[in-house]
């Protein structure tokens, strides 16, 4: 996977969550994702950016256009240096929430993405990466 273009945003507040959504939307439009796929990746981005603010105490979001062979995609990496997730399996479970959402955030983001990777170390932070490929 090669990165064609990348944009790093700091995410410290709820307003930044909106900015991450907009940046992901712009990238998704640029590679010509269908409206439904744009909406999927933007919704997933919203969940992950919010998690980084609410649970991770802020961090960075890297929005990229990536390429692998002939296909292009939108990638979002959300990284925070918060308290981390002790039980990733539990955090991925639908209906589990330690915040104010529906408890569909992480699991939902995974279902809305073509690829999903999560790494977390308690006390050190969390890094989630999603990619939505075109086609």
């Amino acid at each position, binding site marked *: 996977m090669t990165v064609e273009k990348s944009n790093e945003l700091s995410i410290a507040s709820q307003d930044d969550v909106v900015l991450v959504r907009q940046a992901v939307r712009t990238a998704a439009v640029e590679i010509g994702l269908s*409206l439904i796929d744009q909406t999927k990746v933007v919704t997933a981005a919203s*969940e992950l950016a919010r998690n980084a603010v609410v649970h991770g105490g802020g961090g960075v979001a890297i929005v990229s256009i990536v390429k692998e062979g002939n296909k292009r995609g939108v990638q979002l990496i959300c990284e925070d240096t918060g308290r981390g997730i002790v039980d990733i399996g539990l955090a991925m479970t639908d209906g589990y929430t330690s915040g104010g959402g529906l*408890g569909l*955030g992480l699991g939902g983001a995974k279902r809305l993405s073509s690829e999903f990777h999560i790494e977390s170390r308690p006390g050190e932070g969390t890094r989630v990466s999603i990619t939505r490929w075109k086609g």
Partner: protein
Amino acid sequence: MDRIPILRIGELLLVSIQVDMHDRLALSLQDDLTDRIVSTRARGVLIDISALDVVDSFIGRMLANIRHGEDPRRRNRGRRNAAFRGHHAGGTRLDSARDSDCPQHRLRH
């Protein structure tokens, strides 16, 4: 914009969300709407979400709370009718997407 306008039309309240809401704004709308429902004794609420970029889990929960009258800070205020009109992405893209990807949702309770 710090507040989303709530319009009264007879016995109904109309809310048209025309900005990309951050979470705090969504919560203040939930509070304002709960207050207005009580003060106006509205019989129904119409919320237009067609301009929302996405409905993620947080906004979804807010809409569900409004529909069920379950603001955690103000319980037991009874159930009410709520209808949501909207789709999954920006207003200008509605027409091309309406039939295939984004059916209009109408929830009645």
